[in-house]
């Protein structure tokens, strides 16, 4: 599977907002049935990168390739139509709507004719529940339940199942485990594995190294808008990755630096980096 052309590829992509450069020379590939983990601390440019992938921002320089052909998205809708789906932390779901209704928002199944086209609640509920259960969330069995009553992990799973059901080929998961407990996060990671097994290309954004290492095939560490490291599964240990994310220096080195600065400057902490 991994030797065919990548579904989505970035080649030397730069993105700047006016004079501020946010992304420099980003090159990434993600293939079908592969999970690419994008690691980075806050402010490293992860969200800008996601938005560029999802068609919200246009790259200032560089190209985006889909199935080997250069593409330019006019907006998020077009990216979505081409099969790029973004699932955000709380997944575009509506807490006070039923599972069936929220699953089909915008594409409601109807029955009947003319002005009497009626929303087909039964079909909607059945399809939604089946789609989620196929992902291994068997606890969801009533499509009339409100989304807000689900746990964070179940909501994530519902959003992912929804994206897959409506034909996503590339799944961009924006910090799906950030707000979740250990058990819930494991839930979501299982869903990610299932999506991978089904041959989706997954871009998994996180700053939790443990979660990334559980499901990732390929890792890219983003520091100040540039890719600082790019490696495959098993090539680096957890400590090495954490240190990379902290800016390429080990935590121990950093602490020593601060201490020596304070010694030399009568206990003043160092000024913020330029």
């Amino acid at each position: 599977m991994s030797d065919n052309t990548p579904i989505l590829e970035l080649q030397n992509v730069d993105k700047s907002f006016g004079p501020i450069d946010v992304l420099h020379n980003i090159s990434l590939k993600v293939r079908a049935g592969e999970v690419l983990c994008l690691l980075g601390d806050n402010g490293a440019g992860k969200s800008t990168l996601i938005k560029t992938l999802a068609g919200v921002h246009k790259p200032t320089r560089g190209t985006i390739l889909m199935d080997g052909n250069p593409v330019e998205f006019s907006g998020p809708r077009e990216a979505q139509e081409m099969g790029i789906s973004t699932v955000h932390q709380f997944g575009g779901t509506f807490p006070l709507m039923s599972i069936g209704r929220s699953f089909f928002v915008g594409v409601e199944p109807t029955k009947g004719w003319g002005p009497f086209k009626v929303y087909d609640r039964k079909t909607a509920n059945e399809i939604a529940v089946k789609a989620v259960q196929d992902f291994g969330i068997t606890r969801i069995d009533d499509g009339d339940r409100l989304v807000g009553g689900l746990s964070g992990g179940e909501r994530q799973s519902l959003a992912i199942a929804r994206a897959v059901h409506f034909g996503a080929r590339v799944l961009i998961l924006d910090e799906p485990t950030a707000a979740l407990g250990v058990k819930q996060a494991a839930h979501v990671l299982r869903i990610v594995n299932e999506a991978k097994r089904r041959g989706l290309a997954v871009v998994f954004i996180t700053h939790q190294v443990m979660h990334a290492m559980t499901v990732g095939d390929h890792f890219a560490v983003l520091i100040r808008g540039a890719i600082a490291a790019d490696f495959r599964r098993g090539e680096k240990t957890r400590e090495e990755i954490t240190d990379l994310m902290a800016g390429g220096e080990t935590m121990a080195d950093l602490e020593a630096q601060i201490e020596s600065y304070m010694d030399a400057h009568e206990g003043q902490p160092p000024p913020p980096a330029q």
Partner: protein
Amino acid sequence: MNSLSLGQILRRPEFGAVLSFVAVITFYVAFGGVSLGTLFGAASWVNFAANLGIVALPVGLLMIAGELDISIGAMIPAGSMSIAILSGYYDLPIVVGMLGALGLGVLVGLANGFLAVRTSVPSLIITLGTLVAVQGLVLAGSVILTGAASVPLEAPTWAKAVFGQLILGKFQVIILWWFALTIVFAFVLHATRYGNWIFAMGGDEVSARNAGIPTKRLKIALFVLSSTAASFVGMCGAIQFNSAQVSGGMNYIFNTIVSIVVGGVLLTGGFGSVVGIFLGALTFAVVNQGIYFTDIDRNWSNLIIGVMLMAAVLMNNTFRQMALSYAPKKKK
């Protein structure tokens, strides 16, 4: 799965409204010495409920979609003045007057809607602006055109029969309009995809737009609907009472909001039902007008409304929590 269990009834948005309705009537019977026969035979509160309810339906839908429209307070006199000036003062056919009244509603609704989708100003402020502006327009227009703030209107028989007669000598025909519109709105909100869009928009507008819902068009349509409905109520009033005044209508602003919230609609959007809005208007009318049938001094009615509003909101919050935390028992 379709059978209604007690739990399912409890979780419906309008359940709180049913309780409020029963509680208010019980209160009047127990402490006001009112007889149920007199109360249900009386027309005053049903007439009141119908006028209020027709405005509350579209405003309630707007609230479910996450917006508010208070310009209805000015649209009611604007509707009655339009038809009275056109068909009463200028003697144009009644149909022209009706089109004028409803057309003004559409125009103001379009203005509200466009402002709401083009700017980031909250709809409360936008419609506050149009509320005052329409008020000024109607007063100035009426004085310039007719030289008076009150205009008589003689409607032909057929128009009176459809929009402004009394059935059995006391029930306004607008009650039938209210029933019919409730059925239409209930169908749209709960059985069509547009209803689903309204809920989605009120739940999370950005996600709704990302899911491909034309949120802007939908919002404009809802604003048009609410100001046209208000104009319609004003028009019917003018036909019924053979005259129109520039004042009045302001009470409707708070009355509709109270009855919608009592009806179980979430003020911030995303939750509610048409049956709830219907019952909310009915409950409000019983409190407001039913008090005349009791031994209670009518000055107390606002106190009762205030207490009822608080109680209803607290109750609705509890029921919403129950709905949220509901999970099938066997898997718990």
